[in-house]
């Protein structure tokens, strides 16, 4: 047939090639991935390499400004701020990853069901989500943690609950617009049951926009956990956690000892910033339309 394309038939990309392509295409993505790698590394092996024990106190070294001995200075009981900041990475990261994973799974299931089958399931879900979203989210998290107890698990559950609506809404919308698409009907004609069509054909197409949401959420979750700790509801001292450290440091900033609060805060910002930058890159990675 004369319709054969005049395009060169190039070798199509495998998954790894696509990763390299995405990283090269957008320098911001590359930067984000490098920063992300650094954070993961410090979470995984950081505690083994820090110069001082994050819990070790030494009153004689209290409140020392940043120096070559203590890069980030020392706090009110003489602990090395740098070591504490790095060790806190593991905790904060685990909390946010666990919370986001939980809300991703629950939100996706609820949203898919509501978006695909509609009807009363959809109405009920909407009312339920409206109710959760009616509470200013941080306030709700505060309430849940206060009610259930000041443990790390509860912080994770609280953060997960308040984030479910975002995923559920997003997935619901994405599933809804594709529900009657040609390829969905074709999948049914090919003998797939409704569940298979939803899980294997429709849902994977909702992944690219969800990736952006996931990365934003990872950032929010860290901010949430830190905020809760800041008002005394989250992680308890002396565990090193960015939020607590800023809270403790806040008392000293008015008297000029800025390093107690500023370094943990900057690190917190750095982590959240990385996750936000990562969003677009993750989406490009997951979107087949970006492949050439």
């Amino acid at each position: 047939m004369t319709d054969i394309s005049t395009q060169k038939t190039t070798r199509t990309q495998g998954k790894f090639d696509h990763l390299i392509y995405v990283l090269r295409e957008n320098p911001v993505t590359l930067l984000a991935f490098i920063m992300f790698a650094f954070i993961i590394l410090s979470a995984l092996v950081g505690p083994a390499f820090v110069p001082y024990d994050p819990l070790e106190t030494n009153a004689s070294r209290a409140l020392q400004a940043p120096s070559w001995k203590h890069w980030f200075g020392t706090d009110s009981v003489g602990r090395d701020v740098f070591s504490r900041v790095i060790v806190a990475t593991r905790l904060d990261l685990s909390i946010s990853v666990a919370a986001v994973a939980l809300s991703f799974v629950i939100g996706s299931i609820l949203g898919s069901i509501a978006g695909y089958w509609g009807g009363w399931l959809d109405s009920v879900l909407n009312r339920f989500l409206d109710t959760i979203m009616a509470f200013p989210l941080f306030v709700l998290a505060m309430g849940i943690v206060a009610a259930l107890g000041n443990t790390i698990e509860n912080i994770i559950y609280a953060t997960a609950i308040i984030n479910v609506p975002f995923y559920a809404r997003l997935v619901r919308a994405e599933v809804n617009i594709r529900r009657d698409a040609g390829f969905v009907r074709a999948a049914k004609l090919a003998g797939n049951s409704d569940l298979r069509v939803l899980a294997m054909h429709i849902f994977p197409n909702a992944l690219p926009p969800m990736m952006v949401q996931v990365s934003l959420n990872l950032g929010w979750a860290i901010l949430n956990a830190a905020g809760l700790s800041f008002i005394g509801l989250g992680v308890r001292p002396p565990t090193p956690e960015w939020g607590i450290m800023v809270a403790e440091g806040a008392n000293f900033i008015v008297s000029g000892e800025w390093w107690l609060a500023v370094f943990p805060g900057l690190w917190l910002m750095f982590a959240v910033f990385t996750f936000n930058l990562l969003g677009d890159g993750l989406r490009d990675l997951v979107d087949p339309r970006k492949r050439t």
Partner: protein
Amino acid sequence: MLKVKDLAVSFKTRRGDVQAVRGISFALARGEILGVVGESGSGKSVTSYALMRILDAGGSIIAGDATYSGLDLRNATERDMRDIRGREISMIFQNPRAALNPIRKVGHQIEDVLRQHAQATKYNARTKAIEALKAVRINDAEARYEAYPFELSGGMCQRIVCAIALACNPRLLIADEPTTGLDITTQKAVMDLVRDLIRERKMSSILITHDLGLAAQYCDRIVVMKDGMIVEQGDPKRIFIEPQHSYTRKLVDATPRQGESIRSLLPVEDRIDIPNHVVYDAPLLEVRNLVKTYQGKSGPVHAVKDMSFKIKWGQSVGLVGESGCGKSTTSEILVRLMDATSGEVLFDGQDISAIAAKDFAKNPLRSDIQMVFQDATDSLNPRHTSRHTIAEPLRQLGKMRGAKLTARIEELATLVGLPSALLDRFPHQLSGGQKARVGIARAIALEPKFLILDEPTAALDVSIQAVVLNLLVDLRAKLGISYLLVSHDLHVVRLLCDHVIVMKDGQIVEQGPADIVMNTPKDDYTKTLLAAAPQPPARRQKAQIPGGNPC
């Protein structure tokens, strides 16, 4: 009045500069309607955007001149151009509802243009706007003035767009695919209106379209474009009867018209004999008193109101009708994606309407009834390669795996003319015609007895359409499939089908053998439909088909 010389337009893209228009020259006389015809990517729309200087950011005129009544369009200041746009040169676009501001009353949108060009003051703007509405033959103009675009039909929206364009009495009207997406009867109404208004006001016009037949019917002269260049210009009749350039000849051949065979859509060298397809007397599909009613927002909607018809083994039946007639609903019910409200559908003697749609996926009859979908882009999963898409039914219903599966996929690819290198590509890496082939390969993978084709070529260029239609003809002869072709394009239906069913408002108004219904229609609606379809000039009787009948 308009002189274009060696015009070239280029776009800056990520992958370097792309030349959309590469040196074209033409002239437009006063009072003349010029048709610019080409397929997608020919640069026909870009030309008009360049003349109006409304190219997207990144596009610019890099060479040549364009003069309008002495004014240099290329070098005019933006201020001068704003003055010209809407007042001297106006443009109307495709997709009329999207072309109107959705949250602004249509009357106000007309006023905006009038006041911009100082054709009306705050005080008489409303009166003048209503006059503009009346000029495009809108009844009840006073009431329509207050309407929002979403409250109006497609045809009405296009009239409003015309009203906006003509409000300030321009000398030149550019119409960019104004009828694409509209029903045939609406198409005719809009084109007739536009032509009448142009003649009345002694305006000139450029009609941009992909439909050579439409251009031949309404234009004084035609210009054919391909890949940013003009390949031929001239009188419409002459172009149809004696096309000079090979591309023009290809386009002319591919335009379906009365009295020719489906092979004549292809270039001469590809016209092999049409294989015969056998039609048996026994019915494969029998539809009895089909009814579908569903709950709309303002009361029940009767999509299908008591339809009955038969499709014989090996027969190709065409289902024609305009949008909203119920043909899509009918095909969804027949393919068992939707349940009927009442009535029976007998497939090979078995009542398949008794089996619920949601249970049909696991039914052994599933592989016997398949569908080729409209809009090839939407019908392929963006995350699946062509191979995966074609393999899906083979895996799920045919339970094929491994070497057997691969072999069958290759076999199907060859059958539909898809090069195997394209099997590992994603839909966004394929052309329209290639995607259509993937959709067909998927549909025939399990050798169905009955195939519903839902506007399979609506989104394709005319030359690609020719190829795909011929492919369908070859396949049916080889595989003995019965077709139900759902289409709004009467010429295509005539070429492909043995039997035709005409639908209106959920009911069959006429049905019968294709020749009889198309040549001697009995029902008024059928007659309207046939009269509304563009009639390209017939070619001379010296048909160049090697041996055999043209029909």
